């Protein structure tokens, strides 16, 4: 009898959306009888809890869904799948104050899980709802500026973010010169941002991981939804392949601004092409209760052209094949085969002389991940990962020209990693997650590799034959996180982690360009390293209606890259000779005050931060601000439900202008006035601020049809924010010079119609 008392059994299963059958990621399962005991579903909606024999009440909840309770008599291993009902689908919702205190109780910190449905209300440029634009409104995350697609996390550069779409790397997440992101929010299910504090299963970038998961598709019934806006239209079709066993989702989007350009009287505009499209596809099938396969893909392209004379098109393509397998109730396995590619092509026709430049980066990735749910105090994750990279920095082909084509000088590399991490709750109020990632990066031939001195002269050449292995860099990346619950309402968290990065984006322009160049670690370019410590305090008020957090961090950066004075980042072989290497440091404090429930929702975020580099050969080898250094960053997002079918939203952002290099003096050469520069990044762009407003009106809900109108106004008070600043001769007085600021947008209103049936 005594023995039976201590016997342990496992409850496991999936948590799904009752409406669509989609698995819910990060739904929590609590045992009401036991303080601080529970589980959360993994990226495939699976949970597993091992408890001693007894009677329990399981409480299952997920943001935006009605909480469910289930009594369980645990005397054997059991399976429980839950289907939660969406709040919005109930006609009269009485939301009781749910316990929504994951922010306090989770061990992880520096993690931001975005509510994809919240996106619909945040006003954005041209009414094109956009996950990346919304992420930029969170503390610790800064937008790259108007007209640039990148974002900066805790002082990291834009290329230090690992952007994953169904685990495939997206190398350039922006469309239309950075004004839109590649993520069509119709196709998305879950978006999580780790601010450099990711667990050991992620690696490869210093500053952050943006983990984006696509919708699996409704496996209960067919559905169509879409939207028509001023510059683009979207359509999503989803439905079961076999009811409750498999489903698909297809989403497409295309802008049609170029159609309007044709109406323009100006010749330059009339003959200009500028559009993008993208396509998301996903299908899954349950082979049996233990095995399921998923296939997903993305394809997107931007096209920019002027008649037949100039063309530039670029885009990403990804493909992911996954196999989920439950080895047993406690061991979850996921095997993934991933392909991803980014490329661009420039073509120029000059009086019949055609020139074409092609550049691409590709990788093939095989991943094996295991999650072992030992018991309610212990969870172990481990896995391996192997990536083969192929990079074509640039190939120039000329037609009708005596210069022979340069060869396809592909760069090859092989990246491997293995990791293990352990989530451990020794006490009800104390939790740890610690792990180790071991990564390696091997340079693979064929190719010639150069070492350079500081003057850009070649000091050493290494020749590798086809498939020959060159130098291998090994790195140990330990990560430790801790959560101490001071009480039910507040907690202290700490984190230390090391990250490495072996792919580097060279972008020597203030505005960024699709032609920015990815280069791999080489003999000359060493893996970038970052060590981050962070400490946070999390507190909830008013029965978890209000969340408050303050997080502070310090990062030590090694092998950071910057450019020589006046560096030319082209597709030339010696591009590495234009680079300088050194160290860096980033530190800051982030405040977030957030209200998730009620008629008024939204957040206020403030970040005070600094990021500096120290590189021999720049500013007398002293610390100087990195381009993305911004002292203050404020964002306010408010959403208010005026009436059941009317809601309004407002956002306001303010940040210190980017660091920039401006002339301090001038002189004359050959009759021309020339700017004289004294220091790198010693000046600032003017401060940036902007307010956006949006109104959403939901049409009458019918049985088979729903619709809504969204009206938004970007930059309501027409602030002229600087896009570029040029220093030039005063056109009215040639004895003077002046600084001229170009700004892109004043007020941009837009309207979008969304439908669903």
């Amino acid at each position, binding site marked *: 009898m005594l023995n039976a008392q201590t016997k342990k059994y496992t409850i496991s299963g999936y948590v799904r959306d009752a409406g669509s059958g989609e698995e819910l990621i990060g739904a929590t399962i609590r045992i009401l009888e036991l303080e601080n005991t529970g589980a959360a579903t993994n990226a495939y909606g699976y949970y597993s809890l091992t408890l001693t024999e007894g009677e329990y009440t399981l409480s299952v909840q997920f943001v935006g869904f009605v909480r469910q309770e289930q009594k369980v008599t645990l005397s054997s291993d059991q399976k429980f799948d839950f289907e939660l009902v969406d709040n919005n689908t109930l006609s009269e919702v009485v939301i009781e104050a749910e316990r929504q205190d994951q922010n306090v109780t989770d061990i992880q910190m520096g993690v931001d899980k975005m509510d994809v449905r919240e996106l619909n209300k945040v006003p954005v440029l041209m009414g094109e709802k956009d996950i990346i634009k919304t992420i930029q409104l969170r503390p610790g995350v800064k937008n790259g500026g108007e007209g640039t697609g990148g974002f900066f996390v805790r002082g990291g550069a834009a290329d230090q973010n690992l952007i994953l779409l169904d685990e495939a790397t997206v190398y350039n997440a922006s469309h239309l010169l950075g004004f839109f992101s590649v993520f069509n929010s119709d196709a998305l299910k879950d978006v999580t941002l780790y601010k450099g504090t990711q667990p050991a299963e992620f690696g490869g970038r210093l500053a952050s991981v943006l983990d984006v998961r696509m919708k699996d598709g409704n496996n209960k019934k067919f559905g169509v939804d879409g939207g028509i806006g001023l510059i683009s239209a979207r359509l999503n079709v989803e439905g079961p392949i076999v009811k409750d066993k498999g489903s698909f989702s297809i989403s497409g989007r295309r802008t049609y601004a170029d159609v309007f350009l044709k109406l323009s009287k100006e010749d330059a505009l009339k003959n*200009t092409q500028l559009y993008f499209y993208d396509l998301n596809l996903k299908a899954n099938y349950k082979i049996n209760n233990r095995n399921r396969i998923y296939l997903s893909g993305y394809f997107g392209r931007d096209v920019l052209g002027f008649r037949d004379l100039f063309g530039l098109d670029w885009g990403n393509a990804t493909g992911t094949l996954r196999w989920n397998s439950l080895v047993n109730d406690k061991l979850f396995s996921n095997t993934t085969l991933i392909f991803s590619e980014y490329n661009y092509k420039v073509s120029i026709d000059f009086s019949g002389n055609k020139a074409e430049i092609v550049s691409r980066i590709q990788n093939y990735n095989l991943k094996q991940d295991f999650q072992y749910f030992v018991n309610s105090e212990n969870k172990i994750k481990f896995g391996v990962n192997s990536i083969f990279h192929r990079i074509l920095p640039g190939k120039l082909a000329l037609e009708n020209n005596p210069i022979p084509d340069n060869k396809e000088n592909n760069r090859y590399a092989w990246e491997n990693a293995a990791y293990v991490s352990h989530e451990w709750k020794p006490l009800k109020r104390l939790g740890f997650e610690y792990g180790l990632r071991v990564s390696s990066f091997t340079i693979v031939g064929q190719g010639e590799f150069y070492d350079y001195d500081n003057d850009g002269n070649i000091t050493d050449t290494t020749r590798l034959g086809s498939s020959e292995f060159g130098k291998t860099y090994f790195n140990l990346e330990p990560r430790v996180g801790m959560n101490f619950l001071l009480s039910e309402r507040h907690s202290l968290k700490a984190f230390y982690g090391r990250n490495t990065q072996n792919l580097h984006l060279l972008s020597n322009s203030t*505005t960024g360009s699709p032609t920015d160049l990815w280069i791999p670690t080489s003999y000359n370019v060493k893996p970038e390293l970052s060590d981050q410590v962070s400490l946070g305090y999390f507190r909830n008020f008013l029965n978890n209606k209000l969340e408050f957090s303050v997080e502070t961090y310090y990062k030590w950066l090694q092998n950071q890259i*910057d450019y020589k004075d*006046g560096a030319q980042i082209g597709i030339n072989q010696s591009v590495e000779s234009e680079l300088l290497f050194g160290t860096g440091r980033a530190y800051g404090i982030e405040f977030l005050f957030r209200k998730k429930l009620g008629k008024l929702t939204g957040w206020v975020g403030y970040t005070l931060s600094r990021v500096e580099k120290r590189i021999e050969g720049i500013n007398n080898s002293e610390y100087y601000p990195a381009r993305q250094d911004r002292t203050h960053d404020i964002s306010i997002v408010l959403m208010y439900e005026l009436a059941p079918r009317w809601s309004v939203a407002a956002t306001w952002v303010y940040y210190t202008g980017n660091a920039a290099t401006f002339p301090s*003096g001038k*002189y004359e050469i050959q009759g021309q006035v020339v700017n004289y520069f004294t220091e790198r990044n*010693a000046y600032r762009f003017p401060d940036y601020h902007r307010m956006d407003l949006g109104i959403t009106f939901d049409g009458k809900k019918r049985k088979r049809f729903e619709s809504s109108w969204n009206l938004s106004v970007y930059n309501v008070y027409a602030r002229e924010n600087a896009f570029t600043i040029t220093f030039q001769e005063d056109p009215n007085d040639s004895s003077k010079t002046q600084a001229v600021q170009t700004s892109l947008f004043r007020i941009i209103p837009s309207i979008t119609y969304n439908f669903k049936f």
Partner: protein
Amino acid sequence: MSNKIQTLILSLSTIMFVACEKVIDIDLNDVEPKIVVEANIDDIEGPYQVKLTKTVNYNQSNMFPTVSDAVVTLSDSEGNTEVLVESVPGIYVSTLIEGVPGRTYTLDIEVEDLLLKSSCKMPIPTEIDTILVEEGFFGAFRYLSIVFQDDPAEQNYYRFIKVINGITKKDINLATDQLTNGELMTSSLFFFGSDSLKSGDEIEIIMHGIDKANYDYLRTLNEVINQGVSATPANPISPFSPVALGYFSAHSVTRKTIIIP
């Protein structure tokens, strides 16, 4: 190339999205005035001159102070040496030294506790074979192709200066034989805006043979003048040691004139 694409993208995006420009006030630091050197010697008869001026703060007017009382010495690889005479404030001229292709010239300047030095070998001149008038973008505009035979024995660098109806233009046009050593080379020169080629225009092309240091100087000077979107704008690569603003160029000169039909 990549810079040109960026500039194009930039101009397209400013056309696409209702862009607006305005003059702004930026508080720029004062700078300690720095010496600026403009020194030329060529294979045409002297006197050759060296001009010394100083930088001013950005917000000052374009009046650049001259520098007097410097000791400016010009010497060549044949052992000739001459101290230049300050003819007007800031302008130092030669009387003896001759510009001969193939010789290496050295400039020494002693000024305000500074000792600046630069050496430059004057290249052998290259004649222009022909100037062709061509049509671009299917007849949208006309441009010139300068055809000349490159010397296979040397790495060559060229600069072209346009003189339109007697007015010398300031733009910097460069060429190198890096990819076309020893070949019959063609360099294209473009004429935009009010400089667009019209029938009857008399166009003189002055061709300079320059050394690598001056090619790099002019290339980076051109970037500074045309700005673009570089995030790391910087002063041109200096041919002086220690680093100073300006240049010392020993170049050969050839010319050809055409009348636009």
